[in-house]
């Protein structure tokens, strides 16, 4: 649920990084946290298990002066990717404004990508949300590995809804594509908030 606070002149949006286990969601946030100017970020919170796997969520708030006198705050969350954590995944999706779906490019993970995408659609549906209304982008991560599926094949699997969305190829560990993805989803959200509904092509 985005909120506009006319008293503090603040727009607040919630962005969730979704995707299968070990696809690089937390790595995206860590890279952003490390490489964004100090004045635009706060502390990153990770609720992780001892083995550093996300248990509940990771959280990173970002801020930018942007529209007129208004400040925009983006709260970045990740969900735990493991299949058995669906209850917590669903909780994190509550009130979501925009989604980055982080897919693992390796051949053997394509099935997990598809299952995770379907799981996301199902969880959104339970809140009465739909991908027709929530802005989202796709990130094909780990493009530096050798055993990866071609982009076209991943498009065929994941970007097959009526409205095609923006896709970013990335290597989250070194930061390739990470900021492009972040900026794309932020632009989609702000455009939607400021001008009303816009389609991807118009942004």
């Amino acid at each position: 649920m985005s909120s506009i606070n006319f008293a503090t002149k603040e727009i607040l949006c919630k962005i969730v990084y979704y995707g299968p286990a070990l696809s690089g969601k937390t790595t995206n946030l860590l890279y952003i946290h490390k490489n964004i100017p100090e004045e635009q970020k706060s502390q990153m919170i990770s609720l992780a298990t001892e083995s550093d796997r996300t248990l509940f969520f990771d959280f990173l708030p970002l801020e930018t002066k942007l529209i007129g006198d208004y400040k925009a705050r983006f709260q970045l969350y990740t969900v735990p990717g493991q299949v058995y954590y669906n209850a917590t995944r669903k909780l994190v999706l509550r009130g979501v404004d925009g989604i980055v779906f982080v897919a693992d490019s390796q051949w053997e993970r394509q099935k997990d990508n598809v299952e995770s995408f379907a799981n996301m659609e199902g969880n959104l549906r339970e809140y009465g949300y739909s991908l027709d209304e929530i802005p989202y982008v796709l990130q094909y991560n780990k493009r530096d590995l050798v055993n990866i599926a071609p982009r076209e094949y991943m498009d065929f699997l994941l970007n097959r809804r009526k409205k095609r969305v923006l896709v970013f190829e990335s290597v989250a560990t070194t930061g390739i594509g990470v900021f492009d993805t972040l900026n794309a989803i932020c632009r989609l959200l702000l455009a939607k908030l400021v001008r009303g509904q816009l389609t991807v092509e118009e942004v």
Partner: protein
Amino acid sequence: MPPERRVIFEEEQRQIESILRDFLKNSEAKGVLVVDMSGALINGQGFLQRFDTEALGVLAAGTVASTRQMARIVGEPLFTDLFHQGKRSHLYLSLIGDEAVLVVIFDNTTTLGLVRLYSQQAVKSLKQIYAKLSSREAQPLKVEPSKGGELPESIFKEKENKDKQNPGE
């Protein structure tokens, strides 16, 4: 149904502020926040400078969400009040209907009973404000292009990365 959008106007913000100030005066708590269910901080009063209130808000919303599921498992619709006891500092969370959470930070200079009592009163008043907000129409934000209404290409710019590995070095 598209996700809801919450708009807070100055008038309501002032009312929330005044309720929270009264609450602090009566309960003698250290600080108090109103946080919405997605973790967004709506208002905070008291001695909050040394706390990361945004993080506290997000974690409080997360706690409420997970406790709600725990309640279901044991056959309760929800737990409306949560108390986290520490040695010196304590937290008291109270649901403001389905809309938001009141987060109270207090220490041993006051008592849980007092905090609970005045929380109930504050929650009652805050619920009325939220009921009023829900009836207001959410309008798109109007920004004149001359005031910087155009969206820049990159909203967040990456720092010059000195750490980036250069294989040549």
